[in-house]
C-alpha cells in the first residue's frame, strides 16, 4: 500500500526483526545440516552444543578472559592516548594540523605491520593490548577532537570576556561539550579494540581467543572455530550495546 520508506508501528517492526533473525538462523542450520557449503559450515546446533558443553568451558573461559584482559588494557590506554592528543591539540592550536596528519598516518599503518614492531619494542604478551590501544586511540582522538570543537561560539566568547583561563575554559566548557561525541567514540572503539586484540594474538600470544581461532583453523576443528567466532561476536555486541546506553545517557544530558 504505502511502499517506499514507509514506517510501521513498533510491535510490527519488532516482529519483523525477530522473523529476520529466525530466518537467518534457520538458513545457517539448513546449510550446515545438508552440507550445502561443504564440511566447513557446521549446523547451528553443533555450535550451540559445543558452547553449551561444560567440558569446553575451562578452555573457552581461559581464552576469553585473556582476550578481555588484553582488550581492556589496550582500550584504556587508547583512551588516555587519544584523549591526551586531542586535548593537547586543542590547547595548542599550532600543533593541531600536524597532530591530525600524524593520527591519520598512524591509523593507516596496517595492524599486521604493527605486530612485529610491538614485539620488538614490547613483548609477545603485550602486543595484543598495544595494537588494541592503537586502534582505539585513533577513534577516540577523532571523536574527542570534533567534540572539543563543539561548544558554541557564544559560550566561548562569554568565558573569554569573563576572564576565564584556557584551562578553566577547557574544564567548564569544552570538555563537558565534548562528552556526547566522545561517548560515540567510546562505543565505536570497542569493536576496534577487540579486532586489534585478536590480530595481536595472532602474533604468538600464549593464550586468547585469537590463538584459539588459528589453532582451530589449522586443525580442522570446524565447530570450535565457529564457536570461538560466535563468542567473539557476542562479546563485541554485548560491550557495544552497553556503551550505546552510556552514549544515549550522554546525549540526553549534554546535547
Amino acid at each position, binding site marked *: 500500500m504505502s*511502499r*517506499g*520508506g*514507509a*514506517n*510501521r508501528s513498533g510491535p*510490527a*517492526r519488532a*516482529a*519483523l*526483526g*525477530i*522473523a*529476520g*533473525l529466525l*530466518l*537467518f538462523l534457520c538458513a545457517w542450520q539448513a546449510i550446515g545440516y545438508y552440507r550445502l*557449503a*561443504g564440511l*566447513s*559450515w557446521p549446523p547451528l546446533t553443533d555450535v550451540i552444543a559445543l558452547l553449551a558443553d561444560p567440558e569446553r568451558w575451562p578452555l573457552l573461559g581461559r581464552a576469553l578472559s585473556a582476550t578481555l584482559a588484553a582488550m581492556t588494557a589496550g582500550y584504556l590506554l587508547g583512551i588516555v592516548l587519544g584523549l591526551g592528543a586531542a586535548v593537547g591539540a586543542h590547547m595548542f592550536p*599550532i*600543533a593541531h*594540523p*600536524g*597532530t591530525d*596528519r*600524524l*593520527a*591519520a*598516518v*598512524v591509523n*593507516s*599503518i*596496517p595492524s*599486521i*605491520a604493527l605486530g*612485529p*614492531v610491538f614485539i*620488538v619494542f614490547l613483548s609477545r604478551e603485550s602486543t595484543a593490548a598495544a595494537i588494541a590501544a592503537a586502534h582505539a586511540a585513533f577513534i577516540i582522538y577523532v571523536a574527542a577532537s570534533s567534540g572539543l570543537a563543539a561548544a558554541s561560539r557564544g559560550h566561548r566568547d562569554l568565558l573569554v570576556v569573563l576572564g576565564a583561563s584556557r584551562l578553566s575554559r577547557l574544564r567548564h566548557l569544552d570538555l563537558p561539550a565534548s562528552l556526547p561525541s566522545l561517548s560515540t567514540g567510546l562505543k565505536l572503539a570497542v*569493536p576496534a579494540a*577487540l*579486532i586489534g586484540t*585478536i*590480530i595481536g594474538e*595472532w602474533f604468538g600470544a600464549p593464550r586468547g581467543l*585469537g590463538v584459539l*581461532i*588459528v589453532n*582451530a*583453523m589449522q586443525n580442522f576443528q*570446524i565447530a570450535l*572455530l*565457529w564457536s570461538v*567466532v560466535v563468542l*567473539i*561476536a557476542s562479546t*563485541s*555486541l554485548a560491550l*557495544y550495546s552497553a556503551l550505546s546506553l552510556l552514549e544515549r545517557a550522554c546525549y540526553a544530558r549534554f546535547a
Partner: protein
Amino acid sequence: MNAIGRTAVAVLRNGWGILLLIIVWQAWVTAMNFNAIVMPRPLGVLQDLIGFPEVYWKNAVYTIGAAVIGLVLGMALGTGLAILAWLSDVLEGMLTPLTVLFSSVPVVTIIPIVARLLGYDFSTVLAIVVIICFFPAFVFTTSGLKALPAGADDLFRVLGARTPARLLRLALPAAVPNWSVALRVAAGHAVLGAMIAEYLMGTAGLGYLFAETKSDFNMERAFGATAVAMVVSILFFAAALAVERRVKERWN
C-alpha cells in the same frame, strides 16, 4: 617570505608529527644498535623501495585489484540491498536488526572461516573486502534514502508520483551525500582488510609479501611492504574524501 619558505612552513605545520616519528625511529634504532633483522632503519627501507620497485609493484597491483574490485562489489551489494529494503518495508524490518547485529561484529575474525569455505586464494581476500565494504554501504544508504527534504515526499505523493519515480527522482538523489560517506569509510578499510586477509592466507599481495619477508628476516622489505600499503590506503581514503567533498558542494 618567499614561496619556498612558505611551503616549508606549511609542510612543517602539517607534517611535524610524521617527521618526528621517522626521526625518533631512526635515532632509536641507531642508539639501541638494533640489528637490521630485528628492526630496520628508515633509510634502509627507502633503499630497498628504490632498489627493487618491481617486487613491490607486482604485489601492490594484486592488493589494489582486490581492494578496488571488493570495494565496487561491496558498495554495489550494500546499495542494492538498501534500495530493495526501501522498496519493501517487510524486507527492511527483517534486515535492519540483522545488519545492526553484524556491523558490530569484528569482520577480521571471520577470515579463517571464509578461508575454509572458499579456499586459501584470491577469492577469500576478495570476499573479505566485499563484506567489509558492504556494511557501511548498506547502513549509510538506508539512512540516506530516508533523509528527504521536509515535505518533499508528501509533494511527490500529492502529485501522483509512482514508487519508481519517487525512488529515482527523490530518494536516490537524497541518498547521495550519505552514500559518499559510506564510500569514504569503506575505501579506507578496503586496502587494510585485503592486507590482513593476504597476511593470513594469501598467495600474493602486500600482506603476503609482508608475511613472507618477515619470516625470512628480511625486515627492510617487510617494512617497505607496509609503507607501500600505507600510501595506497591513504590514496584510497583521499580519493574517496575528494568525492565526498565534491558531493557536499554539489548537494548543498
